């Protein structure tokens, strides 16, 4: 077959060994190489230089760890300013829009006095279980509020726990600075400038202290001890937010939260005919979820009762779903 597109010197035929079988010389030669390698591995030094092809290459994982490159991306986290506690997120929905598996759910904060939107997120839910770690959210975020974490030890037996909200998403800026110093210093100035502008437009406590308030104090900041160094002590504090408090009824919580988000989104869209059906389905579940913690809790179940009688069924269901989710978040 003529190959006119290839000059003859561009092609070469691989050399086959078509010799008859011998008495194991080929194998002996291979074993010689193996033995050489084996000796080097036994008596040689452990090495990590890329040019080496002999010696020990193992990293004894839980005790020893490789340093993570700065660009490493695992799961998204949200940043807040150490000094003021203000979150950098302004709920611009850029990440929600770009997210390929659509796992980011944001609710924009509203000024309670005027009802106008405020550049802050009231709710930020991310489904870690479906997240594909592509890093687009961090890439598109104009406020550098969402970044990719280096913590990869996220395995859990409790699947619904992977539906994370502010409790686990928030990290102080100082934490991100330790895991990715140059990447942060590149954007630090403009990010902080943008944050100052946004703080001016946030009345009261909106956009602030989400994580701490829920847990009544400092746990987020405390737990976020950076562990990005090359070799933290075994079993040392991992940079993850407090999650332990969430109880056994987590799966119900997840249902409630998701329903609340869907209901809220439906409400945002104006709740057309198409939205009525899922909400109607959602209502009984939400009620059931709402009933359980309410009965167990000593706190009065005022909010449920306060829902007006003259509201439409749809709207009431939505409200109840939202409130159930809020109670779940408070850990009741």
């Amino acid at each position, binding site marked *: *077959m*003529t*190959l*006119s*597109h*290839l000059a003859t010197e561009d092609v070469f035929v691989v050399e086959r060994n078509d010799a008859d079988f011998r008495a194991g010389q080929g194998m002996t030669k291979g074993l010689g190489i193996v033995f050489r390698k084996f000796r080097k591995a036994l008596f040689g030094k452990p090495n990590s230089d890329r040019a080496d092809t002999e010696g020990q290459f193992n990293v004894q994982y839980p005790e020893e760890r490789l340093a993570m490159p700065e660009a490493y991306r695992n799961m998204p986290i949200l940043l807040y300013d150490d000094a003021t506690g203000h979150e950098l997120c302004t709920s611009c929905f850029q990440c929600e829009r770009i997210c390929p598996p659509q796992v980011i759910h944001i609710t924009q904060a509203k000024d309670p006095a005027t009802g106008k939107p405020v550049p802050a997120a009231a709710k930020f839910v991310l489904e870690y279980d479906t997240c594909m770690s592509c890093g687009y959210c961090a890439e598109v975020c104009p406020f550098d509020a969402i970044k990719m974490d280096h913590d990869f030890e996220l395995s859990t037996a409790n699947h619904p726990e992977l539906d994370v909200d502010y409790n686990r998403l928030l990290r102080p800026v100082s934490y991100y600075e330790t895991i990715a110093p140059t990447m942060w210093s590149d954007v630090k100035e403009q990010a902080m400038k943008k944050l100052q502008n946004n703080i001016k437009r946030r009345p009261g406590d909106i956009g602030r202290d989400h994580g701490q308030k829920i847990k009544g104090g400092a746990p987020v900041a405390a737990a976020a001890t950076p562990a990005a160094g090359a070799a933290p002590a075994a079993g040392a504090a991992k940079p993850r937010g407090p999650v332990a408090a969430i109880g056994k009824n987590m799966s119900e919580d997840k249902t409630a939260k998701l329903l609340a988000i869907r209901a809220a989104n439906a409400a945002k869209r104006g709740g057309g005919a198409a939205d009525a059906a899922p909400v109607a389905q959602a209502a009984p579940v939400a009620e059931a979820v709402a009933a359980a913690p309410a009965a167990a809790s000593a706190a009065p179940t005022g909010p449920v009762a306060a829902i007006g009688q003259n509201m439409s069924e749809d709207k009431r269901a939505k409200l109840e779903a939202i409130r159930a989710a809020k109670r779940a978040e408070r850990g009741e």
Partner: protein
Amino acid sequence: MALLARGELRSILQTELPNVLDSRWDTQATDQAEAHGEGQTVLLDFDAVVKAEAIVEVAHFVRDKFGYDLLSNITAVDYLNHGIIELVYQFYNAAEAGPDLRVRVRIGRSPEECIVPSLTPTWPGADLQEREAYDMYGVVFPGHPNLARIYMWDEFKGFPMRKDFPKTGDKYTHVTGE
């Protein structure tokens, strides 16, 4: 054996094999990209559109006359607005390299029309690709030795890559066409 430029095959076929070209598309022989607004389906015609029953003849013609012996890719595209399914056959000339040669077949979407003779007897490499086109688009290839579903399970009804296949819900059995 020579490489063909894009669109050249059409004029060659007009003189050498006048009966194989699909006359329905003679009038739209130019690139009509501008004519299609946003959100519209497109049909581009710089390549030869041949009759379904002539595809085997044309495939042999381009192989024997021009050396396009590597049938690389078979793609089915569902143009719902035009009511047709297009099959794009991409041939390569393994000896002379260069870009691909595209031959198209356009057939209706109904089960009676959605039939193209199989290339598998001559190009066994078309086997899995034709099964994929059958599974996803419902194109039937008479002459194929084992035309069964390839990705979906055997009991599956409907053709999931067709544009009118519902993307939500589990009522996939409502789809017509099988």
